């Protein structure tokens, strides 16, 4: 039997997250009560809106795609003992990579251009993560502060770039021109345009799905989740990342250079966040729009905490948050009294209970479990 205070594995992996989620939802329910609405009814509308129709599922999975990428980004940094709050900025900057490559090499056939643009997204994101990593490793500046600053720098820089460089002359909206097009009748695909599943099924089977932005990036997200698992638990470099995160001194003693690992981990983390651009810029909006990340980088923090920094957990947590986002949107349509920002409240509560107060239930939970065993 393990020592008192330690929990069995299953409790750590499943029970504590579940318990914390329930508490977060209960507190959100109190907020709904304060507004004067019925929390159970609100939850029912959310569930129905997200999983009660094909359209709901489409949006759920589309949101989840973003959250898998940003959740994995936060998780890889976590494993190296780093807190990357910069997912937002890394994803935003990555949008530039996808757009610039997509627009510059428009003449290339799509089987070449799309992988190239995906690579550019990852590289631009990786760069925006690598610089704070470098500054932490070589100059000792704290990663949390630097990544926060880089979010703001990206935000200003992108306004400038989109406004002065990418915006077509004479166009009012601050956004780039479209990065490609798809004609479902002739199957004519140009540019770095990833067609949605709706467009694809229409072109291939002639079947019309409800209109959602869900696109093949979802499969990329699942593949990348597997890749992160493989990297962290099956490769030497991944082992080194985890070793540095678990105990830097021991890692140094084992001949691992933490400085290198910090830079590598941050570059990978930024690259993962950057892949969000594949789903959003290439797959959904098909152009670079101002502030297109819309907080998905921060949702990644909640997703990584909820998913215990494990790819399987992250995919599940991302689906849960996809449900919350889609359900929350439907809820705000059905009940205008409950604003869509209710999701942000739930998100904040999840981070609070999963991240900062995760020890709260541990003592009495372990007391309860061991009492049952005695």
């Amino acid at each position: 039997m393990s020592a008192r205070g330690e929990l069995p594995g299953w409790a750590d992996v499943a029970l504590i997250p579940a318990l914390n989620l329930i508490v977060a939802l209960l507190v959100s329910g109190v907020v709904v009560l304060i507004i004067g609405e019925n929390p159970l009814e609100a939850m029912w509308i959310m569930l129905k809106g997200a999983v009660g129709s094909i359209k709901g599922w489409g949006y759920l999975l589309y949101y989840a795609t973003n959250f898998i990428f940003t959740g994995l980004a936060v998780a890889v940094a976590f494993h190296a003992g780093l807190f990357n709050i910069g997912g937002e900025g890394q994803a935003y900057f990555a949008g530039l990579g996808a757009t610039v490559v997509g627009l510059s090499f428009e003449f290339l056939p799509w089987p070449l251009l799309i992988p190239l643009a995906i690579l550019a997204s990852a590289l631009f994101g990786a760069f925006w993560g690598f610089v704070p990593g470098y500054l932490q490793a070589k100059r000792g500046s704290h990663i949390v502060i630097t990544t926060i600053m880089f979010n703001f720098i990206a935000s200003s820089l992108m306004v400038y770039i989109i406004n002065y460089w990418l915006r077509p002359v004479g166009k009012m909206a601050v956004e780039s021109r479209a990065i490609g097009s798809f004609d479902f009748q002739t199957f004519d695909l140009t540019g770095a345009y990833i067609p949605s599943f709706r467009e694809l099924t229409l072109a291939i089977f002639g079947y019309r799905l409800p209109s959602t932005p869900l696109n093949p990036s979802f499969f990329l997200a699942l593949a990348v989740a597997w890749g992160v698992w493989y990297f962290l638990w099956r490769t030497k470099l991944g082992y080194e990342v985890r070793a540095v995160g678990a105990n830097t001194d021991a890692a140094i003693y084992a001949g691992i250079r933490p400085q290198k690992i910090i830079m590598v981990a941050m570059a990978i983390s930024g690259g993962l966040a950057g892949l969000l651009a594949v789903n959003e810029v290439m797959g959904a909006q098909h152009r670079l729009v101002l502030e297109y990340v819309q907080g998905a980088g921060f949702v990644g923090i909640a997703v990584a905490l909820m998913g215990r920094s494990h790819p399987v957990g992250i995919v599940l947590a991302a689906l849960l948050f996809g449900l919350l986002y889609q359900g929350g949107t439907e809820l705000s349509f059905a009940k205008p009294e409950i604003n869509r920002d209710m999701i942000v409240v739930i998100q904040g509560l999840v981070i609070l209970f999963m991240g900062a107060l995760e020890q709260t239930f541990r003592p009495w939970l372990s007391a309860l479990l061991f009492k049952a065993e005695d």
Partner: protein
Amino acid sequence: MLELFLGAETLSSTIRLSVPLILACLAGLWSERSGIVDIGLEGKMLIGAFAAASTAAFYGNAWLALLVAIVVSLAFALVHGYAAINQKGNQVVSGVAINMLAAGLAVVLGNEWFREGGRTPPLPEPARFMPIDLPGFSALYDVPVLGALARIVSGHSLLTYITIALVPLTAWALARTRFGLRLRAVGENPHAVDTAGISVARLRYQAVIIAGVLCGIAGTYIATSLSASFVRDMTAGRGFMALAALIFANWRAWPALWACLLFGYLQAMGTRLQGVKFGTFEIPVQFINMLPYVMTVVLLAGFIGKSIPPKASGIPYSKDR
């Protein structure tokens, strides 16, 4: 040209924009000097601004608005304190959570109370902290050089003058009082403080409370002085800019004032230079907007000077080590 960069109007708006930065920066100073990292300055200011604007909209009283804002911001500060001190949780994570909670709650509750998508109605003058003329200064307004000076110094809201007074007060309290010395010690070496028989948790809670109060004042100022209603995300990253200023100031009160005035000046210039052309050259305001953050990154990287945080900041204190 000189008028644009150093005119009375520019400098006056520098002061106006610096006030929330100074208050948040002092809040961060107290908190971090005691060893509690506070990423949640932004959220506390935001929820304070919302509380102030809502109270002012309902009751039309600026002072009541200030009181409610302080209480609400304090409640958020205590959540952070509980997570960081009692639960020994990750302080950065807790701060992120506070920011999200504040941003979400303000819009959700505001939408329910005022039905304007999360904003509050415009506040009438009695419900706001309006500019006041310092006695005797208005007579100077038309005097050539002194007049410009008088117009920079006078004509701010009462909260501005309180804020400026808080800087020497903080510097003095941290350097000269028993409380301040203990507080600084707890941020550098909590074990020594504990050994001396002084409660680490109590001191840290006191620091967190001071931070909460200051953020409440900052929020009130933003909603009732700087503007005249609450709009979603109206703090616009000021909490993070205050953190940057804190690093610039090397966690000291007087330098914090100068850093915040510098960043306030950059904010003022960012607005004033919009669309201004020098010959054919137009300074892109985006670069002025990002300057505080770039400067902080450069400073943190040790390329200009060195900034050293309190030794124990961010590390939860447990006796058994």
